């Protein structure tokens, strides 16, 4: 038997405490519905457990593997939702944004959350809010060159964080 990382209940418990929160965040953002997101996370760990012996830590991280499973679960739930007519009984119609785009949006947002505050701040202020570097520099009390270099190191950190969220583009 291969020594997979998810062959004991203790492994699942540890995997859940390490990654459950992020997986749930991803599921909520993708599905737009907390109840469905809970179902998706639960299903992810069940599928992971069933395939636990096939998980090989030498090929990729547990986190990447769980995200790949969750992504499939979300796609399956999205398909089921697309096939379902009308509004669910007693429920709120969940988000209908194109699924792949939402997955990608979540990955970028999650990556932005994961990088350091200094880096995130300059990217948000300059890119999303369109503020000039001089203004940001003044607000932060640092030279303008520092803002510029933080944008550079911020994008580099973002690149690593994106890979961690499973982005493979």
């Amino acid at each position, binding site marked *: 038997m291969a020594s997979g990382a998810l062959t004991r*209940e203790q492994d*699942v*418990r540890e995997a*859940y*405490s390490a990654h*459950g929160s*992020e997986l*749930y*965040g991803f599921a*909520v953002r993708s599905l737009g*519905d*907390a*109840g*469905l*997101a*809970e*179902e998706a*996370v*639960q*299903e992810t*760990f*069940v599928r992971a*457990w*069933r395939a636990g012996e096939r998980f090989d830590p030498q090929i990729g991280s547990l986190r990447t593997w769980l995200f790949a499973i969750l992504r499939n679960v979300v796609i*399956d739930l999205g*398909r*089921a939702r697309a*096939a*379902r*007519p009308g509004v*669910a*009984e*007693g*429920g709120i119609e969940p988000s209908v944004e194109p699924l792949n*785009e939402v997955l*990608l*949006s979540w990955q*970028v*947002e999650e990556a*932005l*959350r994961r990088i350091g505050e200094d880096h995130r701040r300059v990217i*948000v202020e*300059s*890119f*999303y*809010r369109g503020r000039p*570097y001089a203004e940001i520099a003044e607000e932060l009390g640092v030279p303008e*060159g520092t803002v*510029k*270099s933080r*944008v*550079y*190191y*911020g*994008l*580099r950190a*973002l*690149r690593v964080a*994106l890979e961690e969220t499973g*982005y493979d583009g």
Partner: protein
Amino acid sequence: MTADHNREWRESLGAYALGHLSDEERAGLEAHLEGCADCRAELESLSAVGRLLPLADPEQLGTPPALPRDLGDRVMASIAGERRQSRRRRFRFGFALSGATAAIAAAAILAIFILPGGGEEAPSQEVAFASLPPKMQIGARLEPRPFGTELHVYVSGVRSGELCRVFLESKNGNRLSAGSFRYRWGGEDSQATLSSGLDLARTKAIGIRVGDRTFVESVDGGGEAS
């Protein structure tokens, strides 16, 4: 060119990738890029990241939604259920390999204690339907009762409101309805409790008709793939 000078160009690459440099700065950096393959490669990689930025909604960058407190318990409960099922499968597999003598002895015990009376002597059974479309899951727990068999059936991945009709197949091939339920998506509990007059010990298979599709899985342990 000094290392510091090089670093200055390099640290401008992020601003360049995002289109934040002045015309003058841009012209200077482009002249440097002509002769620096490392910076060109780095720029390409950073530009790819920069192209993804418009996909994010900066309003979403706050605190992510809190993990529901009992979700971990529910995950572990599902895993415990899975483990019970796989133990049973392993047991069955071991039984198949354990040699003719043991098999005959066990068959004799089954014949003496279970087959004649049926009913409550039969152990309860967990059944996971194996051949299903990828998004669908069906499972059932069958428990012996004085009246016959109590069934706990759970499905997921089917259309909300879909009618699911459940039947048990006896060892002599008769199909007896065990009732029906509708799967409601987003409901608190997707499990239905049904009952049948057929003794569990006389039950060969459980079937479920979902819309116009029928799925059957064996119950007695003889036919289930492990």
